[in-house]
């Protein structure tokens, strides 16, 4: 691990809650780590498990997924469906031996700017401790 290494954390957020929460963190001048790359989705239910795999393939060290709290979904039940999908996804990643510390799920509402900035800082801190995800990135190098 080089000394200048900084984790890349791909962050999938829901348009209606967490994206607005991140915006609030910005307008309230809460400082958070610059390691996240936010990708806005219409709903956490839109987040296909394929996104997580794809992020790791392309060099992400962690994936952070955040949507509306249960009961707050803009589409009424998108996040409830997402929750079941994430349960299965997490179990499969565990079975395959993917480091599940690197896949983080959260609920973060539009008013929780402070929670968002803390979340990002916490996640960045913990990923810095465990280092780059070379195990997955190595898969790219071994062509047959």
């Amino acid at each position, binding site marked *: 691990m080089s000394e200048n290494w900084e984790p890349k954390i791909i962050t999938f957020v829901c348009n209606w809650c967490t994206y607005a929460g991140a915006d609030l963190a910005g307008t309230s001048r809460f400082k958070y780590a610059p390691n996240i790359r936010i990708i806005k989705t219409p709903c956490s239910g839109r987040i296909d*498990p*394929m996104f997580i*795999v*794809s992020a790791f*393939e392309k060099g992400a060290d962690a994936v952070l997924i955040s949507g509306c709290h*249960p*009961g707050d979904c803009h589409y009424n*039940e998108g996040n*409830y*469906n997402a*929750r*079941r*999908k*994430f*349960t*299965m*996804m*997490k*179990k*499969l*990643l*565990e*079975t*395959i*031996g*993917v*480091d*599940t510390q690197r896949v*983080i*799920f*959260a*609920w973060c509402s539009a008013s929780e700017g402070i929670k968002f900035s803390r*979340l990002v800082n916490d996640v960045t801190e913990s990923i810095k401790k465990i280092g780059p995800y070379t*195990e997955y990135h*190595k*898969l*790219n190098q*071994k*062509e*047959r």
Partner: protein
Amino acid sequence: MQELINKAKELIENKEVDLLIGYQSDGEKGAKPLFVKNPLQAEQLIFNQYCLNNLVTYLMRPDVKACKKVAVVAKGCDIRALVMLLSENQMSREDVYIIGMTCDHVVSPDGTGENEKCATCKVHNPHLADIVLGSPVQEKYPKDKPVKHTQIEKLNAMSQEERWAFWQEEFSRCIRCYACRQACPLCYCERCIVDYNTPQWIDTRSNPRGNFAWNIVRALHLAGRCIDCGECERVCPANIPLMLLNQSLQEEAQEKFEWEAGYDPESEPPLTTFRKEDDEEFIR
């Protein structure tokens, strides 16, 4: 199996079905699928413990779907796949005539000994059929007892690094023939995600990256749907233990959503529904 042949002849002769899918001898002691369109062909029908193929797979093929009504010879475990197809609205009950076969056990894919899936089978006697042939078999596994798979315990006992190394080894043999997809009765998408190239989500070359992505996606698309027939693993030319992935998700669905696939056509598959009190311990 004269009663099977007679029933098949009757169905075809009376034009009750356009096509009947069953088993014929493969020339040795094994069995292979047989597509019966006229009463003469029905003479070749057999049923024994070597009838491993899940014939329900063929019901989703476009040329079979084009038939008005199809009869299928199915064991209890195969009928579970049919039940999933019904609950996913892929066909209506009237479109298929189910010839249910009672079955004590089938052989393991290598032809020696009893198949592993039969030990936890709850449907030796078909649970959904138009006619049931064969003598009733004593059910051994309690109906309400969750199925625990023995193979998966070994995997669960490993550390995360060991599991990663294990699957790297296993997936390295994958040649991406997609036999697992073709044999699966529930992989019926008209166009599979791996065949899309705008955007191309999954590397189609047989390299570690593509093999991981493909096998993750294949297992996930069967989450809460896999009925444990074991066809993917049986047809895999590289002997990858694919059922370990499916079984791990089956057990999760059982534990978290109290769900077992393929028993009740009226029930909703777990990923199409939710409960407000679902577990969310892993979400911050």
